């Protein structure tokens, strides 16, 4: 079992990212938290540092400022004194009416969920490849497995992320780096609040499962595991039938 000492969590001020940060800090792993929301970020960092001084390093950053990622990434590794694992948790999921099209929202979705991930994980990939060790964890979604009616851009952003992570895994496995694609079902986080979701699990439970999967150096992991079977069925529904389905 890998003992991580330094972790970077992009999107670490709420939801699953926050829970992962708490879990890692409990195990004495230094965590760098990146978030655009300063208030939330400082609250989480302060509460972690109150328990173990100097364990959390907060950085205010919007993942859509892609040009900043390389320098901020190197600054973080410098501050942490190294890096063992990266979690890309940042994600948005704008609500859309069934017949609503909103390009601004779609653009933001792709930028946060996909382009931000690529900007940050490209850096992590280059570093880990040279270190010949490291773990990259990307949070995709079951929503990326099929293009449903509800949120076209969100599904597309997660599908693209899934594919990007797979390619990264194929590039990096020969260098001893593991890339883990997490596909959570509905999790009770700020992202899903206000909408009705089936089989919803608390964020802390999801965080535990994600950490377990990352430690095991899994490849594609559904959280919780039941979604592997559900999505197997969903993926195999023929298009002719899928177009007629309402969910």
């Amino acid at each position, binding site marked *: 079992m890998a003992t991580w000492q330094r972790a970077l969590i992009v999107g670490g001020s709420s939801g699953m990212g926050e829970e992962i940060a708490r879990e890692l800090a409990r195990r004495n792993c230094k965590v760098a938290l990146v978030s655009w929301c300063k208030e939330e970020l400082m609250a989480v960092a302060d509460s972690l540092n109150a328990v173990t001084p100097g364990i959390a390093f*907060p950085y205010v950053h919007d993942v859509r400022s892609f040009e900043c990622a390389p320098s901020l990434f190197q600054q973080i590794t410098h*501050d942490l004194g190294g890096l063992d694992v990266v979690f890309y948790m940042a994600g948005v999921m704008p609500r859309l009416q069934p017949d609503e099209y909103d390009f601004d929202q779609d653009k933001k979705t792709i930028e946060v969920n996909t382009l931000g991930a690529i900007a940050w994980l490209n850096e992590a990939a280059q570093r880990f490849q040279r270190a010949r060790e490291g773990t990259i964890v990307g949070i995709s979604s079951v929503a990326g497995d099929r293009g449903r009616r509800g949120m076209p851009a969100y599904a597309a952003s997660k599908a693209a992320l899934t594919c990007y992570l797979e390619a990264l895994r194929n590039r990096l496995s020969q260098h001893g780096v593991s890339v883990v694609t997490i596909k959570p079902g509905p999790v009770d986080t700020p992202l899903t609040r206000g909408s009705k979701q089936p089989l919803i699990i608390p964020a802390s439970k999801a965080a535990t499962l994600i950490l377990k999967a990352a430690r095991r150096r899994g490849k594609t992991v559904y959280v919780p595991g039941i979604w592997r079977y559900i999505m197997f069925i969903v993926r195999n529904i023929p298009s002719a039938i899928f177009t007629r389905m309402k969910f």
Partner: protein
Amino acid sequence: MSPDDLSKIEINSGANAPETVPEAVSAIGSRPAVALPWDHLERTEGFGMTQSGLSFVYRPSTVEGIREVFELARRTGRFVALRGGGRSYGDAAVAGENICLDLTRMNRILEWDPVRGIAMVEPGVTIGQLWQYTIGDGWWPPVVTGTMFITIGGGAGMNVHGKNNFAVGPIGDHILNFDLLLPNGEIRHCSRVENSDLFFAAIGGFGMLGCFVRITLQMKRIYSGMVAVEGYPARNMAELIEQFERQYPTADYLVAWIDCFARGKSLGRALVHEAHYLHAGDDPNTAQTLRVEYQTLPDTMMGVIPKSIMWMFMLPFACPLGMRLTNWAKFHLSARLEPGKIHRQSHGAFNFLLDYVPNWKLAYKYAPKLKLMREPGGFIQYQSFIPAATACECLEAEIRLCQQRGLVPWLAVFKRHRKDAFLMTHAVDGYSMALDFPVSARNRKRLWELAAELNRIVLEAGGRFYFAKDSTLEPESAETYLGAETLDKFFALKRECDPESLLQTDLANRIFGDRLRDERPAAQQ
């Protein structure tokens, strides 16, 4: 850096205004705001393979290139660690997440005077490169280490010694002058008369004051490519020290290997090797033995086994039982066969024992893997320098403590030393014992605890330590043996030569972190 400081840093807090980014980045100030290219990122590790870090490695080949690296470090808020051959055992040339200035391409021999035996070299010239250049003229480096792959610059920075330390002192005693490049780009010429305080501090100053760019060295006249070697056993520590005290006034080289597995009356039993230079006329074949080919170590063992794979044959013995057996067999065989026979050996074969089996350290690395442990292993060397008066008692106590803790060193080397005039010197008028311990994920914690216990024994006996070998020293122990006065003086020079504290290493931060941090604010005021 406390997280409070970090809270003030905002890359871009406006969620809807990513356009304002570049300006916000510069707000980071002295910390790394500029990304360095990934293709410079490399893992640098100590010789013992137990301490390592990822650094941005730059290998300039000119003084101007070194200046540029300093400038780059200044611009990106990183510190610079100087690295030579990378033969320091611990973290002395490691700088995780910072810039590593590797000087191995500054490897030109600039001037050579075969009449007076004076060489002027760049810092990346290795001991091996130097003797191969000079031996044909009948000159040998006055001080050589157990491996010829160290650089002269690194050797000067650590003020290395050889098996003849008691007779000729460390390498610094043979450096006539040098040019030191300060981080601000200025070059200071230092010798015993010019900038003498810097001369005596930079030699042995573990790369904290500046970068040697030119070193002038006095070589030693030899009349043969061979030395006369004699081996004899010592049954215990008391006898070993008695023999050394008797022999060292006349010997040219003196070294002993101690079997640390032996207990009771045999505690500290050892094999001593004594060597003498040959005088003019002793060697009828001088022209032949002074050729480089004669000195070169053979590349096969017993004429058949290629040396490059020898370390694999050592793997089965790389465990406590195997090493106990090896040590036992070596002592008894040599004790029976060697005494009374003086044989001639080339300088290379006698001095460069660490190069005899290439990559032997890999046996330490892969031994834990054979036992199905995932983490590769490594080793540390714990070397302490004890004044002659307390040496016997103290060294016996050290070995006994290792045995009690169940961490017996696999190899122990014993040498005689003398005092020298360098500020941060590790030498004493007495003895040193270097203990090689295997390190694995399992024993690491216990080993560091043992080292702390050993430190107390050493400090009580008035002993000293050596940064080139060190992996475990704590700040308090360093303060104790060096003394506040010496350290104040050294760090005053550091402030003068390197006010921004641009030169740092993981070792410097581990041992002198508080003193280095004190300097940063002072520099900014």
